[in-house]
């Protein structure tokens, strides 16, 4: 057992690592949370959208190159542009997934369990198509080496990681403003509370559903690119994050943007802080321990609304 003073000295860095992991998880968990509350089912194919987003950005980078690094970052404007393009394409992929699979099931009044299993099937297909197209190996967006900088006493981060945190924060703020003030954002929140009442109000629920798919896909792509930046892409990168995404969404409370973000951060911290004192082998189990503790007290999650 390490000495207490040594452990305490490690805490700030573990918190920083946890926040970074949490930021990526949060971006992915927002889509899962939307899925649970607005689309009304657990979409297990969501994690594959992260993988696809990362690989679609890779294709753009392969054509355009990573570009001259911006300042201390390991990549240039090309990767940022590639990420935005991948977000659009992955949003379109999510939209297409709904069109081909889930919309048909909704039209037949399929129960949520059928939707869940359809999601499992879609996930398997999507993951194997990635292997088919890009192979099972790993890829990097850039080969630039980075040196960690001290951002706070006892906390060192790579410039790319600082960028990820800043970009994620900006996306979350923009998304919050969108959900809070735009008419479509309000309709999404209305749908999250009561699809039947939203329908009775004349809301075009199918349009809201399609937009939710698109938005979830776009956010997943950004999470995927950030995951690929730290540090590599591989076909199971999204799948490996699947349980963390669901843990974050449920911990925060389905349908809540703030909940997904806080849930993501808590999952990140739960994965990184306990390994200071216990074997890293238990790392993956920690978020679920936290999830169980929270759900015992608040079954609707931290920011979820009691139905």
């Amino acid at each position, binding site marked *: 057992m390490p000495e207490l003073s040594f452990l305490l000295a490690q805490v700030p860095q573990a918190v920083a690592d946890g926040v970074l992991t949490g930021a990526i998880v949060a971006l992915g968990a927002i889509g899962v949370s939307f899925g649970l509350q607005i689309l009304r089912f657990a979409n297990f194919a969501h994690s594959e959208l992260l993988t696809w987003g990362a690989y679609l950005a890779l294709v753009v980078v392969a054509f355009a190159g990573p570009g001259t690094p911006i300042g201390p970052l390991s990549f240039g404007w090309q990767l940022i542009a590639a990420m935005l393009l991948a977000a659009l394409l992955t949003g379109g992929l999510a939209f297409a997934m709904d069109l081909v699979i889930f919309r048909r099931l909704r039209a037949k009044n399929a129960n949520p369990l059928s939707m869940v299993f359809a999601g499992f099937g879609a996930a398997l297909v999507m993951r194997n198509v990635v292997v088919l197209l890009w192979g099972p190996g790993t890829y990097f967006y850039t080969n630039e080496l980075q040196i960690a900088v001290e951002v706070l006493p006892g906390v060192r981060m790579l410039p790319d990681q600082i960028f990820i945190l800043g970009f994620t924060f900006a996306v979350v703020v923009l998304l919050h403003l969108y959900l809070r003030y735009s008419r479509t954002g*309000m309709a999404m929140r209305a749908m999250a509370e009561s699809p039947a*009442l939203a329908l009775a*109000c004349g809301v075009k629920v199918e349009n809201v559903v399609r937009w939710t798919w698109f938005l979830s896909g776009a956010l997943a792509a950004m999470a995927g690119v950030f995951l690929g930046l730290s540090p590599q892409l591989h076909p199971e990168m999204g799948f490996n994050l699947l349980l963390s995404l669901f843990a974050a969404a449920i911990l925060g409370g389905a349908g809540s943007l703030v909940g997904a973000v806080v849930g993501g951060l808590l999952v990140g911290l739960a994965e990184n802080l306990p390994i200071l004192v216990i074997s890293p082998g238990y790392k993956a189990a920690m978020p679920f321990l936290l999830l169980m503790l929270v759900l015992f007290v608040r079954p609707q999650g931290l920011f979820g*609304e009691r139905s």
Partner: protein
Amino acid sequence: MSAPLLSSRGVVAGYVPGLPIVHGVSAHVAAGEVVTIIGPNGAGKSTFLKALVGLVPTTDGTVLLRDRDVAGLPTSEIVAAGLGFVPQTGNVFTTLTIHENLTVGGHTVSRAALARGVERAYAMFPALAAKRNERARVLSGGQRQMLAIARALMTDPAVLLLDEPTAGLSPKVVGEVFADLRQLATSGVAVLMVEQNARAALRLSDRGYVLAEGRNRFEGQAADLLADRAVAEAFIGVRHGGAEGH
């Protein structure tokens, strides 16, 4: 009487294909009228209203809204065509503010029309204006009903359908809701509602329909229905001699 704004003829509707709950119901309501549908539990009253607004599929019959057959259209199109609907339960978004509830109600209209609708709603229900930025969960039962009605009016509908608008409200608030509905009708809106509080609703109404087992049983002027002994005893809860049944 002016021409009906909403007219249904022979509507057959139900939740499960092949098992209709409404068996060929006809009804109409004109501008400025308040019309109440009464009947025992399970008569298909609420299902009929939901069928009119497209929330329950119709398998036969016509629903003319301002001379346009809207039967079978998606609810969003029917609402946009001029039909407002206030459901019985869970009729406000409790996690949204009052202002956001109104905005969602005006989802199908232009921004300018939305702004006008919001101002009109606050003028009609000042209690809502005072709490515009509060979540709807803080509202009392009567205020929630006001909000549900105000939200349904955001599209400036020609016809307003209400499913038991006074359910669960105190007698004082019931009177206020009915007064609001009468005021709406005076402004030219056609009001068609389903009510369990049959006697009070018919007193407010111009005409009424009695449904039983998913079919039209009686119809006529509200005063005539109230005076009809058979209707009163069977459907309004009034025993011989005029005493309230419950």
